């Protein structure tokens, strides 16, 4: 016999979502998360290259100025990637979730004096939409009656260095290691190191890429819950930092602040691996409604 068949849906008004998204966009552009700042501070203390150290000192100075004077940390205020975890007992009223989010992005970028970087058609007209819409929106249905929003303003310099490969399953950790190192070394200074390296392994092609994006939103210093993955993250981070690329690729011992790996079961024939790089301005902002 079914237990409780009367489910109480919790109503959230679209306007509330719009207001929250606008607020998050502005905050994300100006205030670097504490975990990333702590990561930059650790890097500054440990950096062996004097030039690399100088770069890190100036990046930390930039963090202070941005917060104090409400100037965006970086002029590339990104593609606005929004991850929405929608509780299955949430009922959105007063408009669609998608429209509400886009209205929030438009408002946040316009009223916050953030850069509009989105063009309407990717290979045709490429006319700027003037308010950074549309956002790239990922929705997941989760248990509960809350709406959890994560805003990730993702810069073009690092996003353009993304790589994906489906490897022969036998290549395993060695294959993944080589692919991650190659991706980072070839990218040089373009993605603005020190990086947060997101690695998505498993699932299908598009899911591995989504996992890599999710991985860059994990706080710097928070390790994988899975022991083998956690060890692999440590091993990879040591190797990435042994590349010598360094802060802004001027040479040095800090090329990445973290390597975050997310995994998912996959097909017997496949080993999908996605690498999504996040710059040192690893901006993200969360809220729950």
């Amino acid at each position: 016999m079914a237990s409780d068949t009367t489910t109480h849906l919790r109503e959230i008004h679209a306007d509330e979502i719009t207001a929250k998204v606008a607020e998050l966009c502005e905050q994300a552009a100006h205030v670097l998360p504490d975990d990333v700042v702590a990561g930059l501070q650790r890097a500054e203390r440990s950096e062996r290259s004097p030039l690399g150290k100088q770069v890190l000192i100036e990046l930390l100075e930039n963090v202070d100025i941005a917060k104090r004077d409400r100037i965006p940390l970086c002029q590339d205020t990104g593609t606005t990637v929004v991850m929405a975890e929608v509780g299955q007992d949430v009922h959105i009223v007063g408009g669609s979730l998608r429209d509400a989010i886009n209205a929030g992005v438009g408002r946040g970028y316009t009223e916050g004096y953030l850069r509009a970087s989105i063009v309407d058609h990717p290979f045709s007209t490429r006319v700027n939409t003037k308010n950074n819409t549309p956002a790239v929106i990922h929705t997941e249905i989760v248990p509960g009656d809350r709406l959890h929003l994560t805003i990730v303003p993702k810069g073009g310099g690092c996003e353009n260095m993304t790589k994906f490969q489906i490897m022969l399953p036998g290549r395993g950790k060695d294959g993944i290691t080589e692919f991650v190192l190659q991706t980072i070394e070839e990218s040089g200074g373009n993605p603005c190191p020190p990086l947060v390296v997101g690695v998505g392994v498993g699932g299908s092609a598009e899911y591995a890429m989504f996992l890599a994006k999710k991985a860059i939103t994990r706080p710097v210093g928070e390790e994988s819950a899975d022991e083998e993955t956690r060890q692999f993250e440590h091993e990879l981070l040591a190797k990435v930092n042994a590349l010598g690329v360094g802060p802004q690729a001027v040479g040095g011992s800090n090329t990445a602040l973290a390597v975050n790996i997310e995994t998912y079961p996959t097909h017997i024939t496949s080993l999908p691996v996605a690498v999504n790089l996040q710059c040192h301005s690893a901006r993200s902002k969360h809220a729950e409604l």
Partner: protein
Amino acid sequence: MPVTRENGEIRVSAPLGDDDVAQLRVGDHVKFFGTIYTSRDAAHKRIIAAIDAGDALPYELPGQVIYYVGPTPARPGRIVGAAGPTTAMRLDPYTPPLLERGLKAIIGKGGRGPAVKDALQKYHAVYLIAIGGAGALLSKTIKQLDVIAYEDLGTESVKKLEVEGFPAIVCCDMYGGDLLLEGKEQYRDQATLGAYQSVGPAEKAG
């Protein structure tokens, strides 16, 4: 004097000549004073089209400095928003013709491909990096901003900037030096990398 040294600080002001460029070496920290022009992807496309058509350019190239930047809009009462450099390699295809016409210094982020490095040597010019992602910090050195061409491109329009102490590091000099390759070599730890073999930088940026 376009390149001067004061208390260990190297000051650079356009217009620059071959003798000025000759003084700048890989790894030098410099500070720019005076006029620099902004141009990035869409503006470069138009400038090259103007060159091909024999039309007038938004600014005279000989001796000048281009900064690859698309700033955020200024808040009311301010000169500019965040104004850090963008990836230089995307502009590689457009760069040699500008160097051939006398452009002397370029500021961006990340490395340059072989064609640009050859052109820097051939035409005696220099490529510098500003700190990518230090948009707020760098904005403080910009004292005046005027949109002088392609206003319809918004953030990508061509702007004339007046700067005071804009910091940059010489990345590729006219002697063929490349800071990014030299720096990586110096701090590479092959013992930790094990079997991994080094790869060169990608020839093209996304």
